[in-house]
């Protein structure tokens, strides 16, 4: 008898502890669930609305059509702006990496006067409001005739690309084993050969990581581009923003189709970057 009640008491105790644990975790799960539901809701409504015939006050759209999406692409020349965004961002990514890999190497390996001051200079763009340097850049570019040109767009992207790739690359180089470089030099390799044969191949994961990171950041760059872009020379997100800020001019499904055209490449790049980083981890792990 006594043993039985003991087990029952134990079981009740266990059950009660389980309930207490559940009640303690409940607010957290409600919070996380609620936040995720809002985010998913926002994403799904953009999708649904972009492909709806009309949608007012009901839970579900009245009907589905692709005509808004097609119309948005033909009327706003989305392909043109998409191509322009892709080209400027890609060129700027390559240029920033070419420029910052040697610099990052020097920062990781060498000591020189004013090192901390210079490192601070590379980080300063993150600490200042973008407008503080974007406005004078715009004024200077208009004076030089660089504003509203392809070259101008590429150059201002470097403002994002160089500091970010430096900050990402330095720890990657610091993690490399310097003995390999010493060995290469002691075996008679000159510095260029050492750099291209020893440092760069080891650095491929770091370069890939920073390329993806700055590409996504530059693709979403906004403030400077908005200031220096003209009606024909602008990136996709600035074009979408100008349509959106002129409120009431377009029906909602049209605006959603535009937004979707901006969202799809971003999603694609994000999945691509996740896939690449996983692939790199596997490769480096081996």
């Amino acid at each position, binding site marked *: 008898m006594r043993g039985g009640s003991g087990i029952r008491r134990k079981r009740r105790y266990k059950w009660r502890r389980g309930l207490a644990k559940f009640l303690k975790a409940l607010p957290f799960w409600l919070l996380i669930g609620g936040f995720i539901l809002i985010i998913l809701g926002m994403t799904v409504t953009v999708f649904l609305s972009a492909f709806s015939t009309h949608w007012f006050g009901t839970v579900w759209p009245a009907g589905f059509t692709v005509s808004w999406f097609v119309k948005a692409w033909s009327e706003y020349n989305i392909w043109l702006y998409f191509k322009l965004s892709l080209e400027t961002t890609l060129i700027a990514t390559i240029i920033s990496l070419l420029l910052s890999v040697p610099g990052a190497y020097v920062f990781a390996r060498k000591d020189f006067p004013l090192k901390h001051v210079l490192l601070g200079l590379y980080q300063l763009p993150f600490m200042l409001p973008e407008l503080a340097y974007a406005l004078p850049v715009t004024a*200077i570019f208009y004076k030089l005739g660089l504003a509203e040109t392809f070259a101008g767009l590429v150059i201002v992207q470097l403002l994002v690309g160089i500091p970010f790739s430096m900050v990402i690359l330095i720890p990657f180089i610091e993690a490399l084993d310097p003995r390999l470089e010493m060995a290469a030099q002691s075996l008679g390799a000159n510095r260029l050969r050492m750099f291209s044969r020893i440092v760069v191949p080891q650095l491929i994961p770091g370069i890939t990581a920073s390329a993806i990171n700055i590409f996504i950041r530059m693709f979403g760059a906004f403030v400077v581009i908005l200031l220096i872009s003209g009606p024909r020379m602008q990136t996709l997100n600035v074009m979408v923003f100008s349509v959106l800020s002129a409120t009431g001019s377009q029906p909602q499904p049209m605006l959603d189709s535009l937004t979707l055209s901006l969202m799809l490449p971003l999603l694609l790049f994000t999945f691509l970057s996740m896939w690449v980083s996983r692939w790199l981890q596997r490769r480096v792990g081996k």
Partner: protein
Amino acid sequence: MRANDSDKGRFQKDTLLLLPSLLPLLLIFLYPLIQGLFLTLHKNGASGFTLYNYIQFFKVRNFFNTIPRTLILVIPSSILEMVLAFAMAYHLRGPVRGKGLLNGLIMFPLTLGPLIVAVGMIDFFKPDGWFNLLLIHVGLVSRPLQLLYNFWGTFISLTILGIGFIFSNLVGLMDSIDPSFEQAARSLGANGFQTFVKVFYPLIRSGVWNIFALNVIMQLAVYSSAIIVGNPASSTRVFSVVAFEQAMQYFNYNMAETIAVVMAIVQFICLGVVHYIRKKGYVGSASTFK
């Protein structure tokens, strides 16, 4: 001696490798920044040094009111974001089923950016959108809430993006803390709350305030959500809205840059306050020596 000399020569040559990345930065960042400071000291179109722009900023309501309007939007939302994101990250720390997916979904707004979040909000929070339909159906409100094209529109947008940003940083921070500290506290008889207040929080408070400061910096520059889901004519007339207006509509770069400089000063004051709070307490490593 010889080795020393050649070392010196090499050292100088290697430092030259900095130039490819340094020169562009000097040309498109530092030079314009200095030029910008000079811009603020000239009246638009006139020559000669003057404090006219700064005097105008503090005299004209349209300019000066950007300070309280931005702060009242950014500071409360930043605090709310920190509380919510901290609760989420704290709960999802350690082994939780489906953690990767949940983390990815919470950081998702960061991938989308302010523009897409703003459009998603228009669809989701509009008077006859899913959010209001749900609230009315449950019976929480009798008529739809006006959550767009006013203060709350920008507030919600900032909160959604800020939670994503703070959460993504907190995940890394909390992972860096050795769980054996907490286990030690628990085994010595502290309850969950005590462990959190006396052990866990002191270990990460410095990092938490850093993330808070970074988030405030980012949010003080709010622009696109203030335009698209806010009311840029009155309640969300923040720094960037007025600065862009001066630059793009009136071509008054001098005044626009003055606003940007004031914005930077406000930002540094905020950073100073956060730094002051952060310094009062343990600042140091939270991982064990391995």
